[in-house]
């Protein structure tokens, strides 16, 4: 059992950062990758889905997109780091990745071109959401099995449901194996439609129109040529997720909604026998907000603001009223933030099923958008 994020990552080949939107998942994934490359060595890849622009350009991502790109050693040197290993980064371009997948699995050039030109295919890959989940896992598998990296840190796509991407490979396999798929592609392959299924086709025809049905049938007939490759692949992807060398890092803030999602996700990981490696509680307010002496001091500042203002006015060269005004504001602001800090502490105390490695990261003074920032965040995560 690992006792720190450092130990955890030293023993793993894939780390998947997950959690609800807006909790800093991408930044945490990038910080973990930076720390691993710096301190553990080897080749480390951060596969990110939707990086903040400034973070992306700081890492040299913008120009490279889907391609894996090495972060220049000079960029590390510029912020005073001497990495033992190499840090690589890549962004997930869904459309590009789907096209690559088709190119890999299509039996011949003609089929490949027909699929890439099919209107349904274009819509699925470019416009709609669910295909992102599968392709993220597929790309992860491809990268991992290539043996190019010692560690791959993945930032998961924003899903409607945190579990979507876990289930995506299995769903994809199921879909290609389904009898329904074969049934629907029948009218395209032969004019023969059984009496029993005729009302079914008539209804589908009335709702969707013949042309669309033909497009669908064509699409799936083409896709079926890749079925074996796809199913085998999807099963392998599922296997890699469950492998001992894979770990999940759940990221959350201490707000109610993300934390609920994190708990739900941790339960789901356990139920699927996937490995919950660490929980990162991000942007936690500083513990001094709960300090009893500070609370007492705030009370004094508020209660004797007038006296203190008069007393301190000559020292700070300002009118007493302004000084007491500032003291009152300072005390009130403390109390305001204390309300939030108390709620956070309570949420944390009630948190069930947190793994042994649970790290709280405080609010940082600066937003993270360069290697230096990632290293500072990483140091707080490392333990």
């Amino acid at each position: 059992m690992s006792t720190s994020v450092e130990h955890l990552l030293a023993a793993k080949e894939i780390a998947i950062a997950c959690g609800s939107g807006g909790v800093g998942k991408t930044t945490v994934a990038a910080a973990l990758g930076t720390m691993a490359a710096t301190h553990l060595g080897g080749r480390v890849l951060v596969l990110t889905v939707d990086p903040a622009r400034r973070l992306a350009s700081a890492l040299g991502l913008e120009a490279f997109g889907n391609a894996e790109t090495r972060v220049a050693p000079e960029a590390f040197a510029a912020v005073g780091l001497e990495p033992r290993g190499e840090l690589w980064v890549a962004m997930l371009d869904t459309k590009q990745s789907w096209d690559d997948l088709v190119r890999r699995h299509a039996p011949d050039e003609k089929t490949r071109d027909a699929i890439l030109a099919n209107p349904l295919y274009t819509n699925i890959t470019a416009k709609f959401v669910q295909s992102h989940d599968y392709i993220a896992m597929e790309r992860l598998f491809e990268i991992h099995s290539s043996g190019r990296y010692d560690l791959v840190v993945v930032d998961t796509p924003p899903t409607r449901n945190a579990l979507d991407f876990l289930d995506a490979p299995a769903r994809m396999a199921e879909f290609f194996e389904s009898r329904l798929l074969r049934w629907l592609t029948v009218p395209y392959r032969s004019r023969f439609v059984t009496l029993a299924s005729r009302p079914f086709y008539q209804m589908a025809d009335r709702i969707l129109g013949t042309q669309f049905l033909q497009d669908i049938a064509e699409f799936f007939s083409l896709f079926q040529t890749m079925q074996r490759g796809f199913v085998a692949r999807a099963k392998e992807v599922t296997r890699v997720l469950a492998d001992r060398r894979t770990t999940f890092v759940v990221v959350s803030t201490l707000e109610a909604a993300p934390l609920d999602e994190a708990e739900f996700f941790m339960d789901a990981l356990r139920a699927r026998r996937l490995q919950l490696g660490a929980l990162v509680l991000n942007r936690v307010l500083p513990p001094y907000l709960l300090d009893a002496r500070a609370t007492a001091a705030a009370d004094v500042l508020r209660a004797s603001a007038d006296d203190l203002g008069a007393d301190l006015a000559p020292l700070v060269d300002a009118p007493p009223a302004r000084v007491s005004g500032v003291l009152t504001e300072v005390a009130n602001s403390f109390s305001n933030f204390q309300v939030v800090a108390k709620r956070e502490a309570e949420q944390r105390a009630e948190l069930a099923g947190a793994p042994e490695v649970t790290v709280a990261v405080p609010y940082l003074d600066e937003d993270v958008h360069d290697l230096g920032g990632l290293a500072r965040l990483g140091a707080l995560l490392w333990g």
Partner: protein
Amino acid sequence: MSGSLLERRLLFVTGKGGVGKTTVSAALALLGARSGRRTLVCEVDAKGTLAAAYETGRLAFEPRQLEDRLFAMAMNTEDSLREYVGLQLRVPLLARVRPLARTLDFVATAAPGVREILTVGKLCYEVREEHYDLVVVDAVATGHIIGQLTAPQAIQELVHVGVVSDQTRWMRTILEDPVLTGLIIVTTTEEMPVVETIELASRVHDETKVELAAVVVNRVLPELFGRAEEDVFDRLRGAEPSARLRAEAGPGVHEVFDAAELAVSLRRRRTEYLAALRDALPPSLPMLFVPELFARATGMRATSQVASALAEELS
């Protein structure tokens, strides 16, 4: 300035995860109902957070009345399909629904726009049938909203004839009429939500014909002090005043000042993002500000506080 917001019939509310999209949706619907409009609010993501915002039990596809004129539902594409088949196609035989549902499930996997259209279709239907004066949609997050709003377009490109093609036509007339329909983006004044809001605003303009009606800036931190006060604050942190304060208020005073410094730096950083946001958005676009509540509750108390803040902004 933006009193007309609630005059629209269909409001989609989107935003990056974690910015308070659901709370703002719940608050807008509450405002709608309390200003005399028969209002339906619909949660699309089915995460149950809308129910939490009203402190009510689990919501279902069948709208439930929560208070005078306020109704809430949770979207479910299967139920939507069933209703669609029953109402729109006038297919009486329940037996036909099953194979149809399976077909659609299949088609939905192939062209997932079908799911989006069942969602958007149901909402447009409620507007067209005038079941409600106002429909507020707690829609999908910024990354997915374009796909949802353009689903009828996308489907039309794929399906040229048949019932579905006809259906998408009237949906578009509702969605693309700025008198009827508007999109609201919720953001906070943090880096990523602001960046996403700016990007989404331009994509909405370029890729959809739905009008962006307003941006709601949530959790705006109060300004602690003006420039003169800030100077005083800095000087109070000097050695001599610090020692005096420590003597009077005890050793904890240092942390109290640290907390104020944190508040000031958070506020300052966020002011920059807010300025960037204002600069990037069309000047005519209304921005509504909701202050930080300093209580991260998700219950009815928070919802009604946000509603009052919005009411003030809308008046």
